[in-house]
C-alpha cells in the first residue's frame, strides 16, 4: 500500500463512522416492543461491546507473541494499547447499556448478568493496568503483564458461564443466539453489520496510533 492510500484510510474511516451514525438514526427502523427511540442505541452499544472483546483478544494475542516470540518491546506496547482501548470501549458499552436500561428497565443498574459480567471483566483489566503502573522495570513490566493478560483469557470466560445462572436476565437475545436464528429486520441487520466492521476498523486505527504514541513516549523518556 502506498503512502497516499495510507493517508486516505482515516478519511475512509471517518466516512464509515458518519454512515453508521446516519444509518442508526435515519435508515434503520425502530424495533418493536422497545420504548420510544431507545432501540437505536443498539447500533452503538452492541458494536462497542463487540470491539471491547476484539481488543481483549488482541491483547492476549500480542501478549502470547511477546512471551514466545522473542520479547520485542513493540509486542508489549501492542498488548498494552489493546487493553487500554478495550477498557475504554468496555466502559462506553457499559454506559450506553445503562442509559438504555434506564429507559427500558427504569434503573441504570440492576445487576443483570450482562452488567455483572462486564463489570467483572473490566475489574480484571483494571487490575492489568494497575500491574503495569506498579512495575518500574520495562522488561519485567512487559513480562508480568503478558502473563497476567494470558491468565485473563483463561479466567474471564468462566464469568459468562457462571453469572447467568446466578441472576435472571432481562437482556435482549444476543444477535448470535443459541438457536442460530437471526431475529432481526434486514435494514437493522445491515446497519449493525456495517457498524461491527467500522468499529473494528476504528479500533485498529486507534490501536495503531496508541502503540506509536507509546513508542514515542518511551523514546522521549530514554533520551
Amino acid at each position, binding site marked *: 500500500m502506498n503512502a497516499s492510500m495510507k493517508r486516505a484510510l482515516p478519511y475512509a474511516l471517518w466516512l464509515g463512522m458518519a454512515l453508521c451514525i446516519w444509518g442508526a438514526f435515519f435508515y434503520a427502523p425502530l424495533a418493536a416492543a422497545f420504548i420510544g427511540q431507545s432501540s437505536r442505541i443498539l447500533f452503538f452499544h452492541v458494536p462497542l461491546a463487540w470491539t471491547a472483546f476484539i481488543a481483549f483478544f488482541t491483547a492476549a494475542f500480542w501478549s502470547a507473541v511477546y512471551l514466545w516470540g522473542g520479547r520485542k518491546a513493540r509486542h508489549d506496547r501492542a498488548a498494552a494499547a489493546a487493553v487500554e482501548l478495550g477498557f475504554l470501549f468496555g466502559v462506553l458499552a457499559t454506559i450506553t447499556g445503562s442509559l438504555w436500561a434506564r429507559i427500558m428497565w427504569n434503573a441504570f443498574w440492576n445487576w443483570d448478568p450482562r452488567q455483572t459480567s462486564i463489570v467483572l471483566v473490566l475489574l480484571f483489566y483494571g487490575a492489568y493496568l494497575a500491574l503495569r503502573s*506498579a512495575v518500574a522495570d520495562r522488561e519485567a513490566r512487559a513480562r508480568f503483564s503478558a502473563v497476567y493478560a494470558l*491468565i485473563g483469557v483463561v*479466567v474471564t470466560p468462566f*464469568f459468562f458461564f*457462571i453469572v447467568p445462572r446466578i441472576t435472571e436476565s432481562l437482556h435482549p437475545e444476543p444477535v448470535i443466539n443459541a438457536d442460530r436464528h437471526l431475529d432481526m429486520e434486514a435494514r437493522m441487520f445491515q446497519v449493525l453489520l456495517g457498524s461491527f466492521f467500522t468499529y473494528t476498523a476504528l479500533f485498529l486505527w486507534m490501536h495503531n496510533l496508541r502503540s506509536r504514541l507509546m513508542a514515542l513516549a518511551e523514546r522521549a523518556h530514554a533520551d
Partner: protein
Amino acid sequence: MSSATSSWLASAVAVFAKDWRCELRSRYALHAIALFAVTTLVVASSSLGPLGADKSQAVTVLPALLWLILLFAAAAGLPRAFVHEEEAHTSAALRLAAPPSALFAGKLAYGASLLLGLEALIAPLYLALMSLDVPSPGLFAATLLAGGYGLAAGSSLIAALASQARGRSTLFSVLAFPVLLPLLLLAIELTRNAVAGQPAGVALPQLLLYDASVTVAGLMLFPFVWNP
C-alpha cells in the same frame, strides 16, 4: 518413569518439603492465617449470632461469609511463600536448584496443603458457631477440597507475580481478586447447594475445570514470571 520426570518430581517434592520446614521453624504463615481466620470467624459469629437457626437467611448469607473468610485468610498467608524468597535473597539459589515448573508445583502443593489444613480447622468451627446444618456433607467436603485447591493455585501464580513488583501486599489483592472471583462464585454456589440439600449441578464440573485450567496456566506461565 523416566529419569527426567523423576528428577522433576524430586525437585517439586524438595521445594514442598523446604517450604514446610521453613514454615514450621518460623510459623509465620501458619499463625497469620489461622489467627486471621479464627478472629474473623469469632467477630462474624458474635455479631451475627447463630444465624443458622433461620434457614432461609442461613442459605443465602453463610456460604458467602465462609468463602470470604477463606479468601482473606489465603490472601494473608499464601503470598508469604514467594515474598519470603525475595526477602531472604534465596530466589537466585532457588532458580539454580529447581526447574521453574517443578518449583511452582512444589509451592502450589505447599499452599494447597496449608489452605486445606486451615479449612479442616475453620469449617467445623464455622458450622458449630453458626449452628448450621449440612444435609449434603459429601458435597460440602468436595467443595472445600476443590475450592481450597483452586484458591491456592490462583494465589500462587499471582503471588509469584506480585512478589517481584513494587507495593507487594496491596498489589497481590488487586491482582488476585479478579482471578479468584469465578472460583468464589462457584464455591459459594456449591456450598449453598450443600447447605440447602440440593444436588451439585453443573457448578462442580465447572469448579474442577477452573482448578485444572488455572493449574495448567500456572505451570505454563510461571517460568516467564520466574526467569528473567
